[in-house]
């Protein structure tokens, strides 16, 4: 249902999320994100291969951005092909995109 790939050879390091960001997968996803954030100073989270997102998944994205704001690390979330999906769920939920995501959404 969900797979993550952490590529530290890229500069900056990139975490690819593939599949569903949903309640069923948020626990695993959370763990993967924590590991990645701990390991590198600069991280790009790519949602390009995300095929579905629910409220739990969305919440986790907010948490990533909140972390990016607070910590000294640079974390960017790149929605890629999932941009439209994320736009829709944000709009549906009456939420505005978190800062570390908003820039990319606008692209």
């Amino acid at each position: 249902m969900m797979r993550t790939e952490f590529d530290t050879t890229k500069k900056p390091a990139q975490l690819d999320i593939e599949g569903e960001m949903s309640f069923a997968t948020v626990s695993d996803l959370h763990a993967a994100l924590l590991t990645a954030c701990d390991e590198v100073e600069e991280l790009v989270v790519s949602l390009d291969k995300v095929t579905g997102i629910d409220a739990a998944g969305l919440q986790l994205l907010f948490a990533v951005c909140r972390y990016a704001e607070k910590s000294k690390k640079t974390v960017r979330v790149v929605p890629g092909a999932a941009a439209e999906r994320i736009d829709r769920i944000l709009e549906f939920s009456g939420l505005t995109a978190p800062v570390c995501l908003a820039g990319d959404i606008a692209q």
Partner: protein
Amino acid sequence: MNELGSPLETFREEARELLEQLEQHLMQLEEDPADHDSIDGAFRALHTIKGSGNMFDLDDLVGFTHIVEAVFVRVRDGKLPVSRELIDLSLQARDHISLLLTATESGTLDTEVAERSRLLSVAFEEYLDAETSAVSGGVAGKQNSEAPKDSEHESEGECTYRIEFTPAADSFLTGANPLLILNELAELGTILKIGYCEAIPDLKEIEPEYCYLRWVILLTTDQGENAVRDVFIFVEGSAEIKIDVIDEADPLIGESGYKRLGEILVDRGEINPKDLESAVSSKSYIGELLVKKGFVSEEQINSALQEQNYVRDIRENRRTVETSTTIKVKVEKLDELVNLVGEFVTMHAGIAMVAERKNDQDFRAAAEQMEGLIRQVRDLSIELHMVPVEILFSGYRRLVRDLSEDLSKQVQLKLEGTETELDKNVIDSLKDPLLHIIRNSIDHGIESPEVRTKKGKPPTGTLRLSAYYSGASVVIQVVDDGAGMDVERIRQKGIERGVIDSSDRYSEQDILQLIFAPGFSTNEEATNVSGRGVGMDVVRRNIEAIGGSIRIQTEKDVGTTLSIRIPLTLAIVDGLLSRIGDSLYLINLSYIVECLDLKDVRTAGNGGDMIDFRGEIVPFLDLRRYFGVEGAAAEHPQLVVVAIEEKKIGLVVDALLDKYQSVIKSLGKIYERVEGISGAIILGDGKPALMLDVDRLVKVTRDEVKK
């Protein structure tokens, strides 16, 4: 549901097995009446048969089983001991249920089986106390606690709710997706969803399976609050839900502005009123200020701003929404329709006359049928032209509010009879006169709170606008509980101005009517609100122009009532056709009290210029003389007693002809200056008739008498 076929057959088999079990339990109970397992088992078997039977619409079976089950509920609850008789009866019931199972195959029960159902039911009911048997009555049929929304709640008009929805932290885990609730709410109407993500912690702290989101939702729907609550049925008790009505489509509430940003925040409990006040006192842009002072977050402000805009939009849309169920028609077109219908009425009268003259039965029957139809068309076209006075009244809310503020008075406006309908044209012509009257009432009538308190009245004055039907007229009243008019002062003023003399032959009403004279004002110092009495003469002119009359009642320190009486519709009148010489006159039926033979009436008064009408001395007017009709008086003149606001006069005419319905045409030049005539009509045979201005005639006659 017979088309299901095979599940029903399966049910029958299952039910037979259950009946088998029931029998076993009953036998066991016969040996050990206190055996709990058997009592439970018997109950469960009956319960399942009933429950499943209900799914298959087996009403007879379900109804009967229900009563037996109810008895076993009592047994289970220890309220009823197991007796030998009960077991006997239950075994009979078991056999009967088995019979009902097969009987249902044929559809309807034969009378023998139905009778047995009845007898056994009666026997079981004896084991039920009054309370339980009352309950048993309703359950036999299909009673669905999750009845379809629209049948359960009648439409309650459009309403906007603010719903604060905070899902339980573990809501994801119970499969309750909050987004589905948003989705379901959206299906009820227009929605604005404002999500709050401020509670989401950062990646390090988040419990990813918990729900941190919450929402403030503005929903505009006509489905009623229960429908809104139904959406939350599965999460109530776990989620936090707060539902408030923030805007109702009640026109009486008026459009008097939406809530201020600060008020919204206070309503939601996001800021306390004190903080708001301290922020507002510095008079800068409130949203910015509240954030700067750290009272609320930017998210909260944005959300409140969104709410403000939403309500504003909904209000603006409402007018369009309301008209979308109606068609807008230009008033001119409606006028034209009414006119054409009037022509139609006139033409029909002609046809009816011809039919009468030709004495052709078929022709007459056709003419009569036509009359019925025309009446319907006429009524409908008049109805089309009618609008509720609410439109007129609610427009004054703002005026009253602003005016009382300007004058530092406290005035509460009450509207009554807002559903009363009036001709659109009449409503339009009333707009300005009423405005003047209301201004006067607030300016001169209602006292300042201090004065009122001194007089022992509540500091807030009441201004009541009411409308009601009275015969073919509508009476509109503006009632205030203010100081009342000073009749003596008006009289003095009248004398000063030479409008009246100092004799005492003027009634209070006569003197009060003076305020409608041009340039007559009793207030020494005119205020900028009501001006120098300008308007009251215009008020009367406008009202008379639509065939209305105005009357004042006042009592010192109690208040003043202005009553405006206006005809329901301007275009068509029901009248009584009368003749004087060769001329025909139409008298509006709504003013007529009675018609009498003049010779049956005793004259009274010194000059014989009064009549004794049922013990009341009433002045009368000989219309032949009044209009200067030449020729000899009729042999049997008729007396038509008319009344305006209880003031009666008699009108003498040569003869009374018939009731007549007509459209009033504007007057030709010739009649323009004749006092006492308000219009002309063309009769069916093409002859003209004049419409009497009864209101004027009453006034003229009564004035004459005073002199």
